[in-house]
């Protein structure tokens, strides 16, 4: 039995999310650019901008030459991630085997085993597309094929709207007339080399033997040999298989560069992450902070935590240093993310004669706070630092 792979692709995902947020932009050329960057390039653009010749990665200066009045927005990466999470939640209704980028609007689903429960794969894809449209006002292109490569090519063929069902056994014939650049996995240098040999379409490249293909493509020849024949055995890797990190988000209700507010937000995120670690009897050995500025620029910094810990106070001390390291610009901050990585079971030797140390007192204090919160609710006790932070915008995810 062949596999049934669905690919859902929300064209110009970031632009679509922004337009949903500000519907007045609908129908106008719009680009998403981190404006503060010295050589800002287009992160994403609306269909209208695409029609004017604007492409991803194009320098902002060149875009302005093409259209002086184009609408420009800074990226909100965290928002794209949140929308993506909602889309995945909807998709998990039909299959646990889902693969997606963090915020690129691409979702692969393996529904080979789901058809007995939910019906034919084309019907699942159609229902999901309708659900995305109805719930999130996002209209994906979709395809159904026997592997990820064919499914992705199929959505590229019909983008920005439509659907494509590639029947099992029809893969080679489907690919034959298409240009080579539609094949995912072919990098720029591959395409350049193939073009130098006057190979533009898949059928032209397919006429070459493996030995002949090795001349332009060298050690990538066998990979490309498979790609142009629609061979792709890569499984859909379930995103839920990644348990290696935990992260917490904080979005400021107003962009800020107040050190006090940033520290408060950081403490709150540390508190949440550490509680999660304690509940799962894990410790974190590395932390990363990602700061998103109001102009769309991002800055991140990372450090090791030795020894690994789940103690709020110890982790906060380390993360404060991390914040100082990552916070390098005067521009106001819109969003912060703290990621705790290298999770492992706690491994420490208790001291025989040093019970009343600062470390132990902190551990006792945290344990006592946990007990109070378990009995009276999470907001029943707070540290001074966390008192002023709005909790409504906190998100914790693993």
């Amino acid at each position, binding site marked *: *039995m*062949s596999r049934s792979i669905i690919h859902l692709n929300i064209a110009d995902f970031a632009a679509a999310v922004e337009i949903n947020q500000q519907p007045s932009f609908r129908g106008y050329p719009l680009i998403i650019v981190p404006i503060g960057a010295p050589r800002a390039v287009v992160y994403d653009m609306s269909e209208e901008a695409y029609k004017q010749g604007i492409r991803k990665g194009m320098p902002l200066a060149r875009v302005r030459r093409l259209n002086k009045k184009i609408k420009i927005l800074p990226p909100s990466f965290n928002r794209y991630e949140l929308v993506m999470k909602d889309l995945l939640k909807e998709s998990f209704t039909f299959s646990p085997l889902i693969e997606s980028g963090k915020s690129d609007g691409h979702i692969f689903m393996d529904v*080979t085993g789901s*058809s*007995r*429960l*939910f*019906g*034919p794969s*084309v*019907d699942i*894809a*159609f229902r999901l597309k309708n659900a995305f449209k109805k719930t999130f006002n996002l209209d994906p292109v979709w395809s159904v094929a*026997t592997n990820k490569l064919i499914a992705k090519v199929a959505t590229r063929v019909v983008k920005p709207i439509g*659907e*494509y*069902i590639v*029947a*099992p*056994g*029809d893969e080679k*014939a*489907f690919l034959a*007339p298409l240009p080579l650049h539609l094949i995912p996995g072919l990098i720029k240098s591959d395409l350049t080399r193939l073009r130098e040999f006057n190979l533009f379409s898949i059928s032209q490249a397919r006429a070459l033997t493996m030995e002949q293909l090795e001349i332009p493509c060298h050690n990538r020849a066998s990979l490309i040999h498979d790609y142009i024949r629609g061979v792709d055995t890569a499984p859909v890797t379930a995103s839920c298989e990644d348990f290696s990190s935990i992260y917490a988000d904080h979005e400021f209700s107003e962009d800020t560069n107040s050190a006090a507010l940033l520290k408060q937000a950081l403490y709150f995120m540390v508190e949440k992450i550490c509680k999660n670690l304690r509940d799962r009897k894990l410790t974190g050995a590395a932390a990363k902070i990602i700061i998103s500025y109001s102009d769309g620029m991002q800055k991140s910094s990372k450090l090791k935590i030795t020894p690994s810990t789940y103690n709020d106070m110890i982790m906060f001390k380390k993360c404060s240093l991390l914040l100082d390291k990552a916070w390098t610009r005067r521009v106001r901050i819109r969003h912060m993310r703290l990621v705790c990585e290298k999770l492992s079971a706690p491994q420490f030797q208790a001291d025989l004669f040093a019970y009343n140390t600062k470390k132990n007192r902190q551990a006792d204090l945290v344990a006592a706070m946990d007990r109070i919160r378990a009995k009276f609710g999470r907001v029943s006790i707070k540290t001074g630092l966390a008192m002023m932070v709005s909790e409504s915008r906190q998100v914790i995810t693993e």
Partner: protein
Amino acid sequence: MTNHFDACSLFVGTSGYSYGEWIDSGFYPQGTNSSNMLDIYTKFFHTTELNYTWYQMPKAAAVERMCAKVPKNFKFAAKLTRTMTHEIKKGYWQKEVMSYRQGIEPLIQSKKLLCILIQLPPWFKRSIKFRHYLAALLDELSGLPIAVEFRHDSWVNDKVFYEFEKRKITLVSVDAPDLPGLFPQLDVVTNQDLFYIRFHGRNAKGWGSGNMQKQFDYDYTDLEITKWDSVIKETIIPKARAGGIFFNNHVRGQAPKNALTLIDFLFEKQREYA
């Protein structure tokens, strides 16, 4: 299977043929690859409904490749795409008809088109607006063999049947749960060139569930099939030169099983009459 009852050619098959559950049910041998299903299917049946054309506009190249895979006397009933039945956009659907005509051209060229199946949604009631739309749609599709399936009982009307007779349009007879509002089971033949019957199963509980696996999960008993066998033989066949009979209760492989049972009954009758 094609059976000839004097002057009436019968095409019995199922709605679609590519279902993983049919391997579990034993219709396809264990380990059958999806790409080989049509080949095996054609050994049992001489017709099938193309369901995927409802989801996606047919593409001539793909249809042509499919035509090459089936025997010469095999026929396809192609569903009309949803953009002309369920998601109609004013001023846009005419272009869709053009694209559809181009997409199914290989079926016509290879003489493998049984008919175009227009399956209309339950909310498509007999109102002035929808009557006008249906008339316009049939005009746009003129020259093609057409079968229309209603899902709302407001279309049970002699004027409708008369108009269909005049236009040589086939009214689809349905076997479905006996639910209020649903188009009832009728044996009206409006087109002498073709009659068309669809067996959806009688799962009243699952019908409105929105889940195909519940809606079409039904196994017809031999008695139920025998009753239809009599109706087909005695009432319907004498009025038509050809007929398509399709089982849509595809869940758990009931459709091919029931279709083969009906073929067996029809053969027996043929022998009896012979």
